[in-house]
């Protein structure tokens, strides 16, 4: 699952990291839309040529390359099967474009998730009028994932010590083996949830209808610039798509 790394926040200090998450979200959506508008090789390559320097600016190129390596099997799969099975007039061309589109889509969103801290994300959601409770639930999920994972390992060890053989037997038995892990995990989690609720309650969670925030996000000039440029690109590509007949830029096979 190493290709998922590209959607994980990395602590860095870069121009891209400092941008407002809302601006970055807009940028990511625009570049995703643009990569969905075209299914020709050249425009998709152009999109990637624009996105990769942004990754470099975010100091995350290495991570991106590593993820792409992890993804390469899937990409090869798409390439081979589409070439063999596609009804398109020149299938190789079509499948290369599909592969590039997937890479472009992943890169657009990875640029967002790599550079937005979960806290910033929930703050952005709150300032986009999402209710605090929902945004907070999301950031809490992030908070407790590692804790739950640790607990799951502890339960696994405890059950192994009692003689449960987790990695033996046929697939059906292995699935049944999950039961002695999942049941205690659920019980422990419910208890934990109660104790977390107690602690949150004691600190006034949900008490005031006018909750304040320590760090509010504010749009700066550079954020407006990002939004403006993204919008311009979006309008331009829509115009090109609709009114300028594209030449056949495809490979000759």
């Amino acid at each position, binding site marked *: 699952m190493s290709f998922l790394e590209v959607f994980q926040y990395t*602590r860095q200090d870069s121009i891209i990291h400092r941008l407002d998450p809302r601006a970055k979200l807009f940028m990511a959506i625009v570049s995703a839309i643009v990569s969905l508008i075209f299914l020709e090789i050249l425009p998709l390559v152009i999109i990637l040529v624009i996105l990769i320097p942004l990754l470099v600016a975010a100091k995350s190129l290495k991570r991106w390359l590593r993820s792409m390596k992890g993804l390469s099997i899937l990409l090869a799969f798409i390439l081979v099967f589409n070439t063999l099975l596609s009804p398109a007039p020149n299938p190789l061309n079509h499948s290369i474009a599909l592969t590039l589109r997937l890479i472009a889509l992943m890169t657009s969103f990875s640029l967002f998730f790599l550079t937005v*801290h*979960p*806290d910033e994300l929930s703050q952005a959601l709150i300032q986009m009028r999402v209710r605090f409770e929902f945004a907070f639930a999301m*950031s*809490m999920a*992030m*908070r407790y994932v*590692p*804790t739950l994972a640790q607990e799951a390992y502890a339960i696994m060890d405890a059950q192994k010590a009692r003689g449960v053989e987790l990695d033996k037997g046929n697939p059906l038995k292995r699935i049944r083996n999950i039961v002695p892990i999942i049941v205690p995990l659920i019980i422990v989690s419910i208890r*934990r949830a109660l*104790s*977390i*609720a*107690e*602690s*949150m*309650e*004691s*600190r*006034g*969670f*949900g*008490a*005031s209808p*006018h*909750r*304040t*925030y*320590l760090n*509010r996000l504010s749009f700066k000039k550079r954020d407006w610039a990002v939004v403006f440029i993204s919008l311009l690109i979006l309008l331009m590509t829509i115009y090109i798509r609709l009114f300028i007949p594209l030449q056949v830029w495809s490979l000759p096979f």
Partner: protein
Amino acid sequence: MPLIEFQDFSFKYYGADFLALKKVNLTINEGEYVIITGPSGCGKTTLCRTINGLVPQFHRGYIAGNVIVDGMNTREHTVAEMATIAGLVFQQPENQLVTLNVEKEIAFGPENLGVDPVEVRRRVEELISLLDLEHLRDKHPHEMSGGEQQRVAIASTLALKPKILVADEPTSNLDPKSAELILDIISKLNKRDMTVILVEHRLDLVSKDASRIVLMDRGRIVADGSPREILVMDLCQEIGVGVPKATLVYKSLRKRGIDLESVPLTGEELANLVKEAA
């Protein structure tokens, strides 16, 4: 007027078949450092929950009697209203940390109550320097040790500026060194005029700083007085309280006819008393 007053208070959790607290009468004044101790299941945790209104507002059940905290009856005020009066620190540090970094954690309480962001920032900075959390500022709770987590939990409780700090076995999951640090912080807070109520088993570490020990057993308060009075009682050993070693030595010396001038609570005190007597 006392800060906390239990008036014949009894409580039974919904669905339980015994009373968690039985006719508890207790008054605690401002500035006291009260240690509550007793065997597990004796109602210490319920007592703590009662002080900030979690019982009966969050944990429902059968109630009799009243608890008045800073002039407010806990039956009539929400936990959030009580939050600026009594702050609770719980046993499990990781269940108290609900955000992704220390700054946010400390800010969580005041933000909930709608405190002005400038003031929130001021409190965050103050508590970070008071509890020495600078190096943890941006860390995820999962990257901290238990002792560090508990320090952050204390900071986030103090951010609401409560008059009373109630700590329910804050050290039970910590190694001895972190435990000592946490207990040290708590006794320093008491010296800065905070009323402290601490549930603790390691009496050898805390009884020298405390002004009072309350002994509980099966939902009742069975003894209440200064540490030196309580710890020499035979009752302590009967219900299984961890009496400090120095006090035990004092007791067995007395049994053999050697009466020291006062009751020692630490090894150092004992050594001095023995030197004087010799």
